[in-house]
């Protein structure tokens, strides 16, 4: 097992790490963007442990940087909050910004470089206009193709930037690309979203948060740091189940209604293997039924494991797994005709 996963699973084992294992932990933490997270985990779980100087420097330095990013996000959310307070529709924070605003325990040390929000599709033109009125702009170098790609086929607007803000803002109208094989009806997700007390913002229901992370992990073409996403899912499940006795049955019901049992199966099974997550038996049996045919299951689980738990001495496995997963992420997000067109466009064969 790799050191990062061992420490995430049982922080106490940090007491026994050898110097070369500490170095491996720093490497794995850096690759999966979890150094700041490790800082908080170790400070909280093994506060009396004397860290080697280099480890302390690296973890604490990254934690300080992430804390600074959190300050920037909070300040940006104050500005966006004025906008959110004026509109009739919910402005739903996603991922890092949501964890931060809802003060979820796993926000500490979680890095983020952009703010993701979700609004109902019918509200998109209005929200876009309001953002532009207060100075948010699209990248002036955005190509016509990219703009069209975002607006016609993607689930978000092109990224927005503001001259006062170093963060990017991504405005979504769905959790998944609208051209995906498994199109997602996001209306019930928006319906279930919850107002964050004392703020004009909404966040996803705890079950939808897990489903969204699962979707993201299994469909994203951004492959670096998958272990962080899986750990998010693991912690979000523990936290959800602790707060609400109906969390697991609700997760199952919502996952089924949204047609997301397959990604949920992959994630719960990986989180079980790597972090020891144990859903109740009844839930697990139902999720198991969404397992794909045996060869596909074996292939996916092998690829995900090679990618999530990279073996330094077998770099070809990591490369092969990541290239296949990258292709898969495109394959499931677009029908073949569109995919072909997209790849031709991106390869520069059709110089415009």
């Amino acid at each position, binding site marked *: 097992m790799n050191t990062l996963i061992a420490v995430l699973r049982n922080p106490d084992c940090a007491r026994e790490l050898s*110097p070369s294992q*500490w*170095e491996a932990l*720093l*490497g*794995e933490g*850096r*690759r999966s963007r979890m150094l700041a997270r490790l800082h908080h985990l170790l400070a909280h779980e093994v506060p009396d442990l004397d860290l*080697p*100087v*280099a*480890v302390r*420097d*690296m973890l*604490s*330095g*990254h934690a*300080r*940087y992430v804390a*600074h990013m959190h*300050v920037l996000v909070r300040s940006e959310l104050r500005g966006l909050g004025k906008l959110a307070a004026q509109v009739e529709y919910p402005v739903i924070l996603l991922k890092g910004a949501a964890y931060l605003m809802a003060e979820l325990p796993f926000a500490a040390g979680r890095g983020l470089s952009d703010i993701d929000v979700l609004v109902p599709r019918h509200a998109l033109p209005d929200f876009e206009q309001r953002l532009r009125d207060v100075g948010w702009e699209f990248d002036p170098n955005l190509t016509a193709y990219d703009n069209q790609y975002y607006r016609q086929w993607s689930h978000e607007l092109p990224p927005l930037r503001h001259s006062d803000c170093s963060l990017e803002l991504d405005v979504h109208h769905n959790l998944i690309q609208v051209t995906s094989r498994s199109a997602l009806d996001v209306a019930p997700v928006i319906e279930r979203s919850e107002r964050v007390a004392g703020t004009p913002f909404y966040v996803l229901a705890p079950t939808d948060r897990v489903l969204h992370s699962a979707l993201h992990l299994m469909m994203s073409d951004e492959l670096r740091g998958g272990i962080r996403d899986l750990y998010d899912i693991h912690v979000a499940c523990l936290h959800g189940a602790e707060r609400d006795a109906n969390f697991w049955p609700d997760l199952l019901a919502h996952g089924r209604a949204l047609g997301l049992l397959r990604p949920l199966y992959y994630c719960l099974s990986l989180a079980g293997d790597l972090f020891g997550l144990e859903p109740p038996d009844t839930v697990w049996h139902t999720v198991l039924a969404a397992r794909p045919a045996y060869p596909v299951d074996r292939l996916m689980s092998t690829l995900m494991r090679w990618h999530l738990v*990279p073996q*330094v001495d077998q*770099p070809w496995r990591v490369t092969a797994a990541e290239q296949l997963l990258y292709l898969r992420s495109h394959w499931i997000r677009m029908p073949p005709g569109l995919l072909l067109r997209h790849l031709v466009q991106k390869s520069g064969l059709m110089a415009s």
Partner: protein
Amino acid sequence: MRLGSDVDSFSATWQRSYASLDVLPEDEVCHFRIVVERQLGARRWYRPQVVFRIEGLTPFDPYPLDHAFPMFEWGLNWCIAMSAHDYLMLHSAVVERDGCAVVLPAQPGSGKSTLCAALVGRGWRLLSDEFGILRHADGCFLPLPRAAPLKNASIPLLRDFAPHLGFGPRYAKTRKGDVVHMFPPGDSLQRQADPARPRFIVFPRYEPGAALQLQEQPPEVAMTRLVNNSFNYRVSGALGFRSLCRLVRECASYQLINGDLSEAVAAVESLVQAREP
């Protein structure tokens, strides 16, 4: 740091530059594991390139193979800048003599590296050429002695001024023009674990043909300039503010406009001598 490379010319230059360093013991944890290696594929033979890897990640585009050493120096600076947020990082050179450190904060092109190298040529200890690493706990600067890149006209100037220093090969047409590194003296490397207490802040500015001017700077002016000079002042929050306040309170600050390197060196040395009883 643990460093690996399959580029012989790079290894040779690196060893010349850092020969006096002790090898990191096996049982000590390092901050960075870095590999500088040839780019695979067709580029192995045709216009060969070199890549900088940290923990298997490749944060930058490859460089031409014969620029491996400047790439490494730049890459390591990047790694430190992204990680060392427990310290206040100033874009400044720091040199020390007799326990008295002089901080030379400046923007690129102000002659900071040249002045720093010249002082080192006069026997000052090199703490750093690029990164002033200020420890919040006690206000001391931590050494980071590294090869100092001299650019263009500074190169012959320094070779004349301090011919006894070690210099690396010439790298033509980098982003900053021609570059030759001044290697850190063995003594500076040997003492890389000894921090130094700052006593003077000197903002150097080279102006061709200018007469020497050494003007005292009020602490509030020095403070403002240091805020703008810091890489991570905002990230450091209140700690950064307090550390800079302490720095300008405990140091005398000067602006040094100069057109001649010997005069500039003499001016800095006179500051320190005047302080001694």
